[in-house]
């Protein structure tokens, strides 16, 4: 009701350019992807049936989830102490830590991924430092995980840092004054207060990772195909546009379902900063 009235007073017109833009570049393509998945090569649910009939494709979906789960886990395990360190560091070091997270974030994904290829291959820098036989770090899950974790770290560190920065550290001191060991104080006081940031990081990283293409394509092996790669392969490799569309719709639905579940557990609006 109020939203409608606001639209009517003229200011609402300001939203029209963006709305028109989204309509053309987002809603229309999405609708046509959905339509194509149901009509190409022939009308019906054939593309979806093909997906669910073939263990190969289900494996790819499963692999996508496993990889995303692994990447999320590693990212959070690395990001949590990093974000914590940022909250306790002096301003100068906090700036250094922040820059270390953000500079890669502003660097081209493609450049970074190729850099990993140079670093991780059998004759690369990392293996040069490890004595003995080269450790396989490329074209496998290790390569994918390293590459994607590096890409996703800012998405984990920033929301966790934002939440942790708001935690009153005097509460930990109070807990210790009441008899809590530092470990007890951490789990009973700090961790619950940091949880919204961790949940936001988890969701952001997991959902983003599901749709990754460049990193797994360059760093992963034939056994580590993720659904993004499969879509590209179907689209430009074997020209099954209808099937590729169906894959995209499946990915979108699964992601949507996850967000729906997550919204039951945590306040999503709070996470992206628009909640009160």
């Amino acid at each position, binding site marked *: 009701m109020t939203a409608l009235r606001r639209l009517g007073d003229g200011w609402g017109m300001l939203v029209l350019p963006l709305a028109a833009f989204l309509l053309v570049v987002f809603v229309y393509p999405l609708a046509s992807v959905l339509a194509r998945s149901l009509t190409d090569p022939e009308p019906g649910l054939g593309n979806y049936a093909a997906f669910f009939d073939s263990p190969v494709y289900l494996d790819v979906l499963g692999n996508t989830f496993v990889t995303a789960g692994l990447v999320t886990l590693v990212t959070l395990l690395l990001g949590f102490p990093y974000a914590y360190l940022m909250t306790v560091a002096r301003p100068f070091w906090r700036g250094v830590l922040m820059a270390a997270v953000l500079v890669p974030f502003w660097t081209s994904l493609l450049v970074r991924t190729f850099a990993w290829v140079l670093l991780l291959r059998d004759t690369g820098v990392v293996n040069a430092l490890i004595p003995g036989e080269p450790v396989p770090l490329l074209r496998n899950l290790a390569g994918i995980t390293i590459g994607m974790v590096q890409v996703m770290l800012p998405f984990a560190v920033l929301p966790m840092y934002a939440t942790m920065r708001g935690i009153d550290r*005097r509460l930990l*001191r*109070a807990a210790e*004054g*009441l008899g809590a060991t530092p470990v007890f104080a951490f789990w009973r006081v700090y961790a619950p207060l940091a949880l919204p940031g961790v949940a936001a990081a988890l969701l952001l990283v997991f959902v983003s990772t599901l749709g990754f293409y460049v990193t797994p394509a360059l760093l992963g092996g034939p056994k580590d195909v993720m659904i993004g790669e499969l879509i590209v392969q179907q689209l430009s490799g074997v020209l099954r546009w209808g099937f590729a569309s169906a894959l995209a719709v499946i990915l979108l639905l699964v992601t949507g379902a996850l967000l729906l579940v997550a919204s039951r557990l945590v306040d999503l609006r709070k996470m992206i900063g628009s909640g009160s």
Partner: protein
Amino acid sequence: MTGAVDVRAVTKRYPGSLALDEVSLHVAAGEFMTLLGSSGSGKSTLLNVVAGFTEPTSGSVLVDDADITGVPPHRRELGMVFQHYALFPHMNVFENVAFPLRRRKVRGAELRRRVGDALEVVELGALGERRPAQLSGGQQQRVALARAIVFQPRVLLMDEPLGALDKRLREQLQLEIKRLHRELGITFVFVTHDQEEALTMSDRVALLREGRIVQVGTPQELYETPASRYVAEFLGESNLLDEDGGLLLVRPQHLRIGPPDGPGLRAVVREVIYVGGGLRIEVERPGGQRLVARTTVRPEELPRPGDEVVAHWSEHDSVNVPA
């Protein structure tokens, strides 16, 4: 009775400053001791040394004759209340108060009974389900009090617990903390910069200045027989008169203002202010020194600014202060 605190020659040195300088203080078991001082006097540092949050550079702290210097705060079994309440925002009132007990593995009916008792003591029995954010400042500090006493510590440490509250609430909680002290019978160490608060609440007061204790005694001792000019000026209003190389203290309520032909110190009235129940008269002596008198004179005798008067007092109302 247990809960005697002994601070022995505690020094705390920070880079470039000396927060505590060889401070020694004995707090008897069951006593209400107030550490009084302005900001930077070292009173909070001293409390934090006792609590274990601050490691002294040298010296030791004993509770009931056991040396606890170097023992981490969570093993000291002392209750602590902070100015900023420090309630856990993600827990309701019940869980906040239960926190020290859960740590000590108290569970079930025993836990509920003890939390309930502690909340009864601070008169918040009905608010267990509330979140701290739903409470007023005074209620929050009561929860913090309940949380600090629920595990029956030998000593309760309070760091300016009423500093964030408005005057009326502060006075109300002062009385409640006094009552709590009587009911629990444990040792209270209370930090404040408010001399009035220190005088009304304490069994004894230790006045700190620049990292040293300048005087320890009952409120009456500090007020009536201050050990130095600093103590006299810190506690209440005071008129300090130079007299043969010494100092004479006359409190405003003992200073009388009379007609200019009588005996006493000649002065000119500068301000006459009505303060509920009496007058506050400020007079100026020829040298420029101002004296303050508090009286309840009748309106017809009311002096006016500019009047020549004399200030006088009975000899037994004046005190010599070591200069």
